[in-house]
């Protein structure tokens, strides 16, 4: 995986990286076929079909308006490395293009290694597959 699917602003972030870091990576223009909104975010979140009990619990806690401390505790206890692939797909789809894009941008801003770009590429690919045209 050496392709980054980047929106216009993200392309600029990539181009601002040192040439040596850009080497080996291909930045492809991304076009989204989906306009996100706060309402749709919430709907997608509610429609996630989660098998993992810990992740489902975090969502329920947030929906029920628990205390921040309780949420922090739940997240602290959450082990995403064991998350089933189906839940991961649900989660990443549920977060939507804007959140995924934010992560892409953050990764590009701070990128210093190929591993950082790999992360950006991965999130951009997921956004492209789920929400691209």
């Amino acid at each position: 995986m050496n392709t980054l699917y980047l929106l216009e602003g993200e392309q600029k972030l990539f181009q601002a990286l040192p040439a040596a870091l850009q080497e080996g990576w291909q930045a492809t223009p991304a076009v989204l076929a989906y306009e996100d909104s706060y309402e749709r975010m919430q709907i997608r979140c509610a429609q996630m079909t989660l098998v993992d009990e810990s992740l489902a619990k975090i969502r329920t806690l947030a929906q029920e308006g628990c205390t921040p401390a309780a949420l922090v505790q739940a997240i602290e206890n959450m082990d995403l490395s064991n998350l089933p692939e189906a839940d991961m797909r649900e989660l990443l789809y549920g977060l939507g293009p804007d959140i995924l894009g934010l992560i892409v941008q953050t990764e590009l801003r701070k990128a210093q290694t190929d591993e950082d770009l790999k992360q950006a590429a991965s999130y951009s690919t997921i956004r492209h597959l789920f929400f691209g045209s």
Partner: protein
Amino acid sequence: MSMIDFQETPGQPDVIAPSGLLEIIRNLPGFKEREMEVIREQINDIKEREVLAGQITEYIRERYRSHAPENSQAMQANVFEQLGDLDNILTVEKEEAVRKAEKFAEIEADPEKKGLLATAMRSVKEGWEKIKKHKWKILIALTAIAGGFLVWYYWEYLSTLFASLGITGQAAETGAAVTQEEAVATAVEGVEAAAALNNPSISLVEHSFFLDGVEYLSTDPVQMEKLKGVLQAMAEGKPDFLLHLQQHETARMSSEVALQDMMQAITNRPDALHITDIAEILPQ
């Protein structure tokens, strides 16, 4: 096709409330919790939602034609107006459910896309394992959305989060593993996430306000408290606050004077602050 049996005794459903929908139903005057539970159970099943949406809407409509506790025209008009909202929400929910099912099926049917997604998700998971902040970022976003994204709540949450990670100015001074720069960077990222979640109608003023404000204030717990106060003030929707916000737009909240000036114009409010409150008072 039979109507929903509202007499059936419900079990203890694993409730996943569709956003907005239950709230509207809940606010319908005279509705009993028993009815709510059954409706909630039924509409939780997304496969049945399309069929049930019409039934639920019709049931509620009939319920108010015949059994409204206060059978006034005004109340019925109010209920029917809310039913219009309900119809809209159901329409969007249906669109989202269909789109998601189609998209997942499309990827599943295409070996290239399926492989690409699997590879990307594997890489993302590696990131979650290696970099603790990635996990937090994802789950913060999830909880912010699921929780209705209360800005005030979010700040409380971030503060608790920072504390749990030992990210404080004091920790930096005493040589803790997390540096002050990292704390600020984390805060900025968190607030960027907050801004990205915002309603598009919220202007860039707020975005830069958040970014510069937190960058300045996150280094000092006392200043952080002031920022919280400012956020509370935004919920007040006071014209003088808006004026101050505009006046100090160029100051970007990075000066102590600007903050003090703003603080004089506001009164704290203890309850939660919703993002839509901000959207209403900020310049468009």
